């Protein structure tokens, strides 16, 4: 990385912003068609009611909630990379920070969409907001569902501002080299940034504060999401380990999504010198760590279920492994804890294809984990005559794919129109490394 010059970085990133090919627009169009189908299904659900989804007594929380938790989880590792690793001064974050932060912003938006879908009558969402009304009705701030609203909207606001602030110096670079309409747009976006020393002083301080604030926010948001489940008394849900377990799991799935996104991105945009294999390897090593935490949580839950001598707890955890949803359970365990251990082998974590394949497995496993936790507990709780079954309907599958289509659509648009690698942070990294070599 030290062989790169500032100008090489500039050109490597700026060439990705030239006029896109028709092939690109075909992919965008495909994603857009997916979005239209998704919107059509949503219109269908709005007209027919929530019954078109598979939820029914006793399982009232289905794939909409699973997808909600899944996408919030994806969002988290973006902030881990851009904020938390910034605080730890880990240089390997610089090449991927921009794309990771973008992933966060889009993922939070998609995540926030699912509770709205799940509402059924979306137009009464304002009931949940603290808006003055004639009947003096206010939300119940004791409820974890309201915590969620506050937490997710805070997360979205903070991430968007952090994302934008990070891009301002890069917008200035594009402004200074563009012409015509693009120059006008980026002049507006760059807000007159000129890189004066006073500006940089304040900018660096503001950025550090952003990172320092985003870090506790990440931990709190997914803890709040976990408390949607843990604060109830349902067996398998009411357990104290949920908050750190969910946070670790979120980072686990998010890092896997980072690999899934970065590997094609770097190939298509010829970023191999910037997003080097060492960077991807660092991501893989972190996945080993988060996988171990998730494994520890699984083991602890099972142990305590036995230790508690509560027949309800013991039945709940036995059923997860051997009941109606045993396939999902074992996919979860193998994909989340066993397969990431393959990254311990250097050959596997330094080759692109294994990195990509394992990242897909981890994503599948983490989706299954949310399935096992949400469905597995609600379908099989205290009273045997209240036990039930749940299968997602085709409509729910469309909603799930729709989330992915929205994400791909937005990310494709981002990659070709905004700088997908932070040129400024890459230059800072090179400068820092040069200074170290001099000493």
């Amino acid at each position, binding site marked *: 990385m030290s062989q790169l010059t500032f100008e090489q970085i500039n050109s490597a990133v700026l060439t990705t912003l030239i006029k896109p090919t028709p092939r690109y627009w075909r992919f965008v169009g495909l994603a857009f068609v997916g979005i239209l189908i998704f919107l059509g299904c949503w219109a269908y659900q709005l007209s027919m009611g929530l019954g078109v989804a598979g939820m029914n007594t006793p399982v009232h929380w289905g794939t909409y909630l699973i997808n909600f938790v899944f996408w919030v989880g994806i969002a988290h590792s973006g902030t881990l990379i851009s904020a938390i690793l910034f605080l730890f001064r880990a240089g390997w974050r610089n090449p991927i920070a921009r794309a990771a932060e973008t992933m966060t912003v889009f993922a939070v938006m998609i995540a926030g969409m699912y509770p709205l879908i799940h509402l059924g009558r979306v137009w009464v969402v304002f009931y949940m907001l603290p808006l003055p009304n004639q009947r*003096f009705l206010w939300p119940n701030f004791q409820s974890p569902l309201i915590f969620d609203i506050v937490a997710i909207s805070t997360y979205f606001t903070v991430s968007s501002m952090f994302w934008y602030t990070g891009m301002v110096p890069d917008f200035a670079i594009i402004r200074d080299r563009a012409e015509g309409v693009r120059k006008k747009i980026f002049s507006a976006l760059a807000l007159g940034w000129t890189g004066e020393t006073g500006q940089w002083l304040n900018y660096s301080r503001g950025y550090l504060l952003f990172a320092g604030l985003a870090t506790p926010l990440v931990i709190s948001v997914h803890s709040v999401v976990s408390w949607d489940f843990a604060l109830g008394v349902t067996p398998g849900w009411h357990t104290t380990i949920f908050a750190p377990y969910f946070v670790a799991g979120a980072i686990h799935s998010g890092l896997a999504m980072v690999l899934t996104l970065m590997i094609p991105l770097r190939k298509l945009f010829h970023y191999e010198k910037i997003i080097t294999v060492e960077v991807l390897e660092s991501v893989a090593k972190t996945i080993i760590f988060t996988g171990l935490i998730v494994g520890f949580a699984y083991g602890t839950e099972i142990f305590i279920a036995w230790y508690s001598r509560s027949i309800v707890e013991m039945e709940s955890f036995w059923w997860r492994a051997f009941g109606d949803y045993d396939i999902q359970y074992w996919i979860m365990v193998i994909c989340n804890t066993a397969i990431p251990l393959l990254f311990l082998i250097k050959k596997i974590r330094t080759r692109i294809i294994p990195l990509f394949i394992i990242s897909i497995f981890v994503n599948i496993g983490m989706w299954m984990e949310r399935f096992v936790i949400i469905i597995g507990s609600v379908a099989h709780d205290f009273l045997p005559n209240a036990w039930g079954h749940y299968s997602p309907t085709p409509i729910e599958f469309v909603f799930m794919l729709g989330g992915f289509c929205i994400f791909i659509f937005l990310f494709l648009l981002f990659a070709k129109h905004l700088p997908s690698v932070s040129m400024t942070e890459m230059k800072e990294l090179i400068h820092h490394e040069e200074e170290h070599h001099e000493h």
Partner: protein
Amino acid sequence: MSTETTTITGLFDTESATLSAVREIQAQGWKVKEVHSPIPSDKLAAALNRKKSVIGWFTLTGGVTGFISGFSLAIFAATRWSLIVGGKPIVSWIPFFVIAFEFTILFAVLGNVAGLVTQIGIPAKMGANYHPDCSGSVYGVLAESTPEDAEKLRLLLQNKGATTP
């Protein structure tokens, strides 16, 4: 006394060249008005005697406001009808803390943004002496002198390795 000043721009490729040039210019008695750089530099900021950033105070104010607002909102909402929900006390600090915490972060970030906007002065009008390469890879030093000394200043910059457009 003549109050006219001419601004000469010198473009450098590295931070170290820029620093030594800035120090040399200041040693000769001229003023370095500004340096435009592609990446932040503590040393340049120190050489130009820039004051430390006060954004932190904006953030802290926001954070404290948020903490109080979060609790206030939750307590206000609960005490309108004072209904006992789920067997919990009407004003229960333990769950309300989550709301206060999120509001702390939110308002602290809003304060941070307010600080950034006011302290950096964005959206800003770009000065006429800004050279567009400075965002990319070049350090632009803006030095001021009287019109009579302009040539001497230009020579000095060129001696230190700058291109002077």
